[in-house]
């Protein structure tokens, strides 16, 4: 449902079905709603059967990369010769995205159940749920729910009374966007600076504490119980577009739009319908100018491009962007694209871990050049300089933070070039 709005008939509420129901947060309330049946079922299956069911469902990572979840799980060693770990990525920090927060706030047991199933499937006895430090409310709700899950024996040394150890711990971040990158997150859990690691080795070979590790996003894990209970075919059938994109996705709509909020849609849903029908269209007297469909790290679309975009992994790529984390940032004709591009670059400059030169220097200089343009001191060659800089920041670093800074900058200059040029010729926004 479009929390905080009532559900819209065009939504497909699966994960969000119980958002807003305080009772769903409790163990009893969750069991009443069919909770923990999937875990019981999973523990009666072999590890391989659980992995196969998730593979067959077509579920793909909801954190941004869209990697097939079952395939990721299958990379974990079959034999458990040293501890295996599951990390749940609840470091939701991608500007525009606020869905994992609602999953944790309203349906904490859905996440605990999903984590427990995933942990079993990958042979892990320990799960760390990494919650960003600023998420004080989700933390409190998760802490209470996890204590309850332990008290009820759902998790712990003898999970569901089936003789399996499934331990689960919350780990609080401390203010670093980059810790949402999976290898940075592992370093952060290990008590280190959150610097991303060079891959390979991949986490499934050598991850947390040097052991085989799988990292999954909150929304991905929360979908798993539904797949087990209702079947892979049921999940796979939820598809309006490309058959490679199945199931539902929470789209977080924000920015200058009438009804911001989370909307759960079957993949393949038209972005135009989301913006106009569900989220209520532009604010009074305004027109949409630009839409970033997948969180701030993906290329910006013009309003016209957004109108023709299909919300699935392939559809967003076809439109020249990416589905990413599903954070839909809307900007109307009141927005100064040059200023907001600078503000995005400043975000990445602030969040760069600074180990790679291209990122540390590139994000900082991108911001400074844009500030110079905004101050009316831009030079004619500055746009080319920014594009050249963006090229030096793409595909050349340990992680994709610098690519994520370059993508919106390049697309903003390409698609809204006259706005930048007005600053260069007039020294200010308008003539």
């Amino acid at each position, binding site marked *: 449902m479009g929390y905080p709005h009532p559900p819209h008939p065009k939504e497909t509420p699966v994960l969000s079905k119980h958002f807003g129901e305080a009772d769903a947060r409790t163990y009893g309330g969750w069991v009443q709603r069919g909770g923990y049946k999937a875990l019981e079922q999973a523990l009666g299956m072999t590890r391989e059967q659980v992995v196969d069911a998730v593979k067959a469902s077509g579920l793909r990572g909801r954190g941004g990369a869209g990697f097939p979840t079952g395939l990721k799980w299958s990379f974990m060693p079959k034999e458990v010769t040293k501890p295996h770990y599951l990390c749940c990525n609840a470091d939701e920090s991608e*500007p525009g995205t606020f869905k994992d927060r609602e999953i944790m706030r309203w349906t904490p047991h859905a996440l605990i159940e999903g984590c427990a199933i995933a942990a079993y499937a990958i042979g892990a006895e320990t799960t760390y749920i990494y919650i960003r430090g*600023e998420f004080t409310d989700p933390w409190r709700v998760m802490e209470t729910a996890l204590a309850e899950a332990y008290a009820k024996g759902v998790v712990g040394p003898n999970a569901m009374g089936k003789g399996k150890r499934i331990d689960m711990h919350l780990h609080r971040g401390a203010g670093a966007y980059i810790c949402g990158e999976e290898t940075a997150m592992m370093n952060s*859990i290990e008590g280190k600076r959150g610097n991303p690691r060079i891959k390979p080795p991949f986490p499934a070979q050598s991850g947390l504490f040097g052991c085989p590790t799988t990292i999954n996003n909150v929304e991905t894990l929360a979908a798993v119980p539904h797949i087990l209970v209702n079947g892979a075919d049921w999940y796979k059938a939820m598809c309006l577009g490309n058959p490679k994109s199945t199931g539902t996705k929470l789209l977080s709509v924000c920015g200058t739009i009438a009804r911001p909020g989370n909307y759960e849609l079957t993949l393949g849903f038209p972005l135009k319908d989301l913006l106009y029908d569900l989220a209520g269209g532009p604010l009074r007297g305004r027109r949409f100018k630009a839409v970033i469909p997948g969180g701030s790290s993906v290329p910006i679309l013009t309003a016209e491009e957004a109108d023709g975009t299909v919300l699935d992994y392939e559809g967003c790529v076809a439109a020249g962007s990416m589905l990413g984390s599903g954070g839909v940032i809307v900007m109307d004709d009141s927005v100064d694209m040059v200023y*907001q591009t600078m503000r995005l670059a400043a975000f990445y400059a602030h969040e760069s871990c600074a180990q790679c030169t291209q990122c540390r220097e590139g994000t900082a200089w991108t911001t400074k050049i844009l500030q110079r343009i905004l101050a009316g001191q831009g030079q004619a060659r500055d746009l080319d300089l920014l594009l050249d800089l963006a090229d030096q920041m793409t595909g050349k670093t340990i992680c994709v933070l610098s690519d994520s800074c370059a993508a919106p900058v390049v697309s903003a200059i390409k698609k809204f070039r006259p706005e930048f040029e007005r600053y260069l010729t007039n020294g200010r926004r308008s003539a």
Partner: protein
Amino acid sequence: MSGPDAPAHQRTEQLPRVFVGEERKELDAVLAKYPTKQAALLPALWIVQRKHGWVSPEGMAETAEVLDVTAAYVRGVVTFYTMYHQHPVGTHFVQVCTTTPCGVCGAEAVRDAFVKATGSKRLGETSPDGNWTVIEVECLGACGFATPVLVDDDFIESVTPEKVPGIVARYR
């Protein structure tokens, strides 16, 4: 200079040790969750900050001692993460999100309203009465509820400049 913004070397008060009594027990419970002592560093620093209000050099040294790492290592980690205060802050700590999704909805006016209503001279500088420190932060992950603000551990959604004086009054 004295008061909340005094540089660490000019401080005269002695900060009590952190990991004794209840806090020591809490740390032991944390240590049981991880296979290495070092992994307890972030949780330990949160305990230090809760007890002292910031992560002081003494706090870092004590953390280093109990986790068998060097104080320099601890400082390296503390300086990486923005939520650990490396100097004392006001009684109430306000974090206003001004990243793009909130920025286009007027977050910068909310930020300015907090600076004004708290009597702070400028962003990031503790108010003369020692009660308030207002800072601007990057994305708080609640973009649909622009503008989200954290006052201490209270997460407040949909703040507008008009609501700011009322929010500030609640904490006086």
